[in-house]
């Protein structure tokens, strides 16, 4: 998909997530007290309310939790169809990422397919997309 993705306004909470790809890192906020993850990122742990939280680079592998093949061009320059998926990340319980499954035909995606992150950079934002792993 070669269209202009929505440009994020970076802030204190989301910067590590949207720019971690520059170093190849998929950053999810983790609590140093209880060890659990909070996503969307916040400055407080949603499990124990500790403020001892920080972005943590996770493995970037996971599985397709569910998906849809989108055929509607919601914007003029959108190339359809493409796959929108919800990926559950390995070792990041309870956290899902909405993303695109790229580098394969749209009908080649199924629930539970193993995937890994590939970053696409546009204008300083590193969008975490996923591709299937053989």
């Amino acid at each position, binding site marked *: 998909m070669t269209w202009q993705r*929505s440009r994020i306004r970076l*802030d204190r909470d989301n910067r590590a997530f949207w720019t971690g790809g520059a170093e190849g890192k998929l950053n999810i906020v983790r609590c140093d007290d209880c060890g659990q993850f909070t996503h969307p990122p916040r400055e407080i742990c949603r499990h124990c309310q500790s403020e001892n939280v920080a972005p943590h680079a996770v493995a970037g592998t996971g599985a397709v939790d569910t998906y*849809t093949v*989108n055929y*509607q061009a919601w*914007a003029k320059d959108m190339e359809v169809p493409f796959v*929108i998926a919800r990926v559950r990340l390995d070792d990041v319980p309870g956290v899902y990422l909405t993303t695109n499954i790229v580098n394969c035909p749209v009908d080649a995606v199924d*629930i539970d397919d193993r995937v890994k992150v590939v970053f696409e950079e546009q204008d300083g934002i590193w969008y975490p997309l996923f591709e299937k792993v053989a």
Partner: protein
Amino acid sequence: MAGEAYITGIGMSEVGVRLTRSAIGLTVDAVKEAIADAGLTLDQIDGVSTYPGKMQAFLGFSPISTDDLIEVLGLKTRWHAGTGEATAQLGAITDAASAVKAGLARHVICFRTVYEAAALARPDEYPPMQRRNDITGGSQWVSPFGAFSAACWTAQFATRHMKRYGLTREQLAQVALNDHRNAALNPRAIVREPLTMDKYMSARMITTPFCLYDCDRFTDASTVVIVSAGDALDEVKSQPIRIAASAGSLERYSWDQAEWASAYPTGRDLWKNTDYSVKDVDTVQFYDGFAFQPITWLEGLGFCEVGEGGRFIEGGTRIARDGELPMNTGGGQLGWGRLHGFGFAFESVVQLRGDGGARQIAGDPKVAVATSGGGPMAAALLLAKD
């Protein structure tokens, strides 16, 4: 009955697509009809409630505020509320019911005005929403990936239902087929043309498994429900319908983090504060912005087991007007129009009063369930004729 809350009046503006009448004009039309229906006068109205309140950035999604209405009608209110931080659309009615039960108001106008088709047609007045730059809040987690519409978010839950429980497109189609059949008997519905399974199956795909007929379309309308206190019913000339129970929940503000839709916790919760049970329900008016949502409501409320929703509506006979559980008798949002939740409360009252005309269900219906939302947030109302 004192201490209870009742719906005493319903009203609706013209319902259409790309209407030229102003949004406030449509709202006043709906109020006037509801006031007349209840047999009240404007000086008896002392509360106003709406969802989600005025939202300037969202085209015609919600162009009218409580202030706008209080101002143009010259109301003298003692209580008002309008917020999107509520338990979905019908939460505005739940809030009004709470207010009258607490003695904060006697007669509350609850309204939902939608103007999305008109706004889209008049970009000079309603500049298109900026989806591309400076994205903040919840949309940043979905819109960069082309998931601009709730269709894309809801469709993923539908896909999972298909893979996990065997939901088929033929089963899903029954929601739209039933809506079209009922809309044909509702003079206020925007959809007039019949729908067949062949036509459904050959329709263009929006986002799998949703085709064109699975998604509601932008509509211009205002719907009003008047909620009155139990000890103020002597001022009312209509047949009051009691709000026997209500429930609401918020799963996760970011749709994609929810394990399941909020229709499930809300549905379970609705029965906790009432002696009624699913066996008592004569008709259901289930939110169907997307065809999958009524399936989650059937399961969430316990009309069938989780995973059985598709099989419950298979063939369409159970949910038909003459079936065991008539659903969306006014045409739902896929047939009547995107009234954004309030149409389901309106239609429940129509049916319980026996005012449905050609679309009236048989017998003497006494209990209805109306719902709104069901994705990240949900609201349900149990309505009963005493």
